C-alpha cells in the first residue's frame, strides 16, 4: 500500500436507474486523511456517488478504487468479473458509512448496535468489543447511553451512535450521506462537532452535505456537482468563496440564504 496514492479514485463513473442517468462520467480523486465535501442541489447525484463507493449501488461503467483496490469487480484480461459476496463484504468492512436516516438497528441497544459488526463479522472477543464500544461512545459523548434503545435517543444522539457504529469496524474511509439533514436544527451542531473531531484525528472523510459552513471550516476539498457531473472542485476557500461557475454561484446564494440561522448556531457552539 502506497500512502501517497489517493484513498478513493473514480474513473469515468456512470450510473443509471433505468433510463435515468444519474452519474454522467465522474472522475474524482479523494486524498488520504482529508475531508472531501460533496455539495450540490438535490438530484445532482452526490448521494448516489457516495453509495457507489461502497458498492451499495452498482455502477454501469467506469472504475472506483478504494485504497488502490477496485470496488466490486475483479479485472482480468480486459473483462470485469463481478465479485463474490465474500469479497464485496471484505471491501465494505473498510468503508464506514453514515446515513441521513441514521438506520440504527431498533431492536438492539446502543452498544449492541456498535458491537454487531466487530463481534459478528470480525469475531472480536465480546469483552474487547464492549470496551471498544464504550471508548467510541465516550468519544461521541454518549458513554451513559450504552444500554439505551435507539428510540430513547434524540436524532443527534442517534446519529452520533451511527458514527460510533461505523467507526467500530476501524474503516479506512468514512462516507457521510447528508448526516445532519434529518435533524432538528438545534441538534445539527452536536453531530458536526463529532465529525470535526474525527477529521482532526486524521480520518479520511467523504461528506455529502448542505452545511456550507462545515464544508468551509472542516473540508479540505470541495466538489460541486450538478446534474450528474462535477461542475467545479478545489479548496473550500476557492469553490465556496470565489466560485467560478455560474451554477455554483447560484446554488451557494440559495443555500446560504436558507441555512443562515443554522450556520449561526454552529458557529456559536
Amino acid at each position, binding site marked *: 500500500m502506497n500512502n501517497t496514492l489517493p484513498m478513493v479514485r473514480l474513473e469515468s463513473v456512470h450510473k443509471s436507474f433505468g433510463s435515468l442517468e444519474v452519474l454522467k462520467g465522474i472522475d474524482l480523486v479523494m486524498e488520504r486523511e482529508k475531508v472531501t465535501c460533496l455539495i450540490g442541489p438535490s438530484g445532482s447525484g452526490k448521494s448516489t456517488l457516495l453509495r457507489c463507493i461502497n458498492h451499495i449501488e452498482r455502477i454501469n461503467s467506469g472504475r472506483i478504487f478504494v485504497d488502490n483496490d477496485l470496488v466490486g469487480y475483479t479485472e482480468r484480461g480486459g473483462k470485469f468479473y463481478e465479485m463474490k*459476496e465474500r469479497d464485496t*463484504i471484505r471491501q465494505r468492512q473498510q468503508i464506514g458509512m453514515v446515513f441521513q436516516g441514521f438506520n440504527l*438497528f431498533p431492536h*438492539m441497544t446502543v452498544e449492541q448496535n456498535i458491537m*454487531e459488526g466487530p463481534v459478528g463479522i470480525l469475531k472480536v472477543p465480546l469483552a474487547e468489543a464492549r470496551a471498544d464500544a464504550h471508548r467510541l461512545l465516550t468519544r461521541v*459523548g454518549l458513554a451513559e447511553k450504552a444500554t439505551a*434503545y435507539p428510540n430513547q435517543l434524540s436524532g443527534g444522539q442517534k446519529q452520533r451512535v*451511527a458514527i460510533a457504529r461505523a467507526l467500530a*469496524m476501524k474503516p479506512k474511509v468514512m462516507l457521510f450521506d447528508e448526516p445532519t439533514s434529518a435533524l432538528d436544527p438545534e441538534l445539527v451542531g*452536536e453531530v458536526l462537532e463529532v465529525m470535526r473531531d474525527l477529521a482532526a484525528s486524521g480520518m479520511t472523510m467523504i461528506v455529502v452535505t448542505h452545511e456550507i459552513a462545515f464544508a468551509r471550516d472542516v473540508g479540505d476539498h470541495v466538489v460541486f456537482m450538478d446534474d450528474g457531473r462535477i461542475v467545479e472542485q478545489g479548496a473550500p476557500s476557492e469553490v465556496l468563496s470565489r466560485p467560478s461557475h455560474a451554477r455554483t454561484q447560484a446554488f451557494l446564494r440559495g443555500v446560504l440564504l436558507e441555512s443562515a440561522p443554522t450556520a449561526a448556531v454552529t458557529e456559536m457552539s
Partner: protein
Amino acid sequence: MSRTEERIETGTGSRPTMTVVPVRHWGQWITAAALVVVLAGFASTLVTNENYRWDVVGQYLFSSRILTGLWHTIELTAISMIAGIILGVLVAIMRESTNPVFSKIAWLYIWFFRGTPLFVQLLFWGYIAALYPNISLGIPFTDAEFWSVEMRDLMTPWLAAILGLSLNEGAYMAEIVRGGLSSIDQGQREAGQAIGMSRARILRRIILPQAMRVILPPTGNNVISMLKTTSVVSVVAFPELLYSAQLIYAVNYLTIPLLIVASIWYLLVTTTLTIGQHSLEKHFGQGHTTSARSSGGVLRNVMRLQRRGTPPEADIATEKAHG
C-alpha cells in the same frame, strides 16, 4: 390512595367546589341488562337441562382415549406449525429472490395450496397411493432405480395429516412472513451492508428479528386456528381429539357430552396458547416502546424517566453542553 386525595384537595382547595355530572348512557345500560338476563337464563339451563349429561362429561374428560386424542392434536399442531413456519420462511425468501425460477415456484406453491380447500388436500394425501403406487429413487427418465417403496406402506394417516396440514400452513405462513419482511425499511438492509454483513446475516440478525413484530400476531392466530383445524384430519382416519370423541360416541351414542368434552379441551389449550402468544409479542416488541402494542416498553420508559427525574429535553441539553 390517601396521598392522592390530599394532593387533589390542596390543588383545588382555593377553588369553589363543583359537582360534575357525567353523561348517562341509559340506552347502553338497558341493553346490557337485557343481555345479562338472557345469558343468565342460558346459564341456568346448563344446570337444569338434563340432556347435557355432565356426569358423562366428567366421566370422559380424563379418559385415556380422549387424553391420547388430545396429545395427538397437540402433536399435530406443533409439528405442522413448526414445519409450516420453516416452509413459510423459505417460500417467502424464495418469493423475494432475484432468481425468477425461485420466485415463480414460490408463487405457484402459494397459489395451489391457498387456492384449494385443506379438506381436499388431506384427501389427496390419503389417497395418494392410488395416484402413485410406488415411489423410487433413481435417475429420472430412465429405468435405473436404487431404492423403492410402496406408497401404501409409507403414507400412514399420521404422515398424510402432517403433510396436508404443514403444506397448507406453509402457504399461509409464506404470505405472513413476506408481509413482515417487506415491512422493514430498506435502510436497515443498507446499514447492515455498510458494516460488511452478508445477505444471510442481515436477514438473520437485522431483518427477521424486526419482522417478527409484524409476523408474530398473525402467526399466533394461525397456531390457534391450526389447533382447531386439526379436527379436519378425521377424514384420513387419524384419531386426534375430535375423532377420538367421535369414535366413542359412535358406540355409546352420547354425542353431546362427548362433543362438550372435546370443546373443553380445545378451549383450555387455546387459552394457554393465547397467554403464550402475548408474552412472545412482548419479547419481540423490544426497542419499539413508542408503539402502543408494547405496553411493557412504555411502562419501562416512564419508570426510566421517573428514576432520573428530568425530562428528556434537559438531558439532551446537558449532553450538548458536555460535548
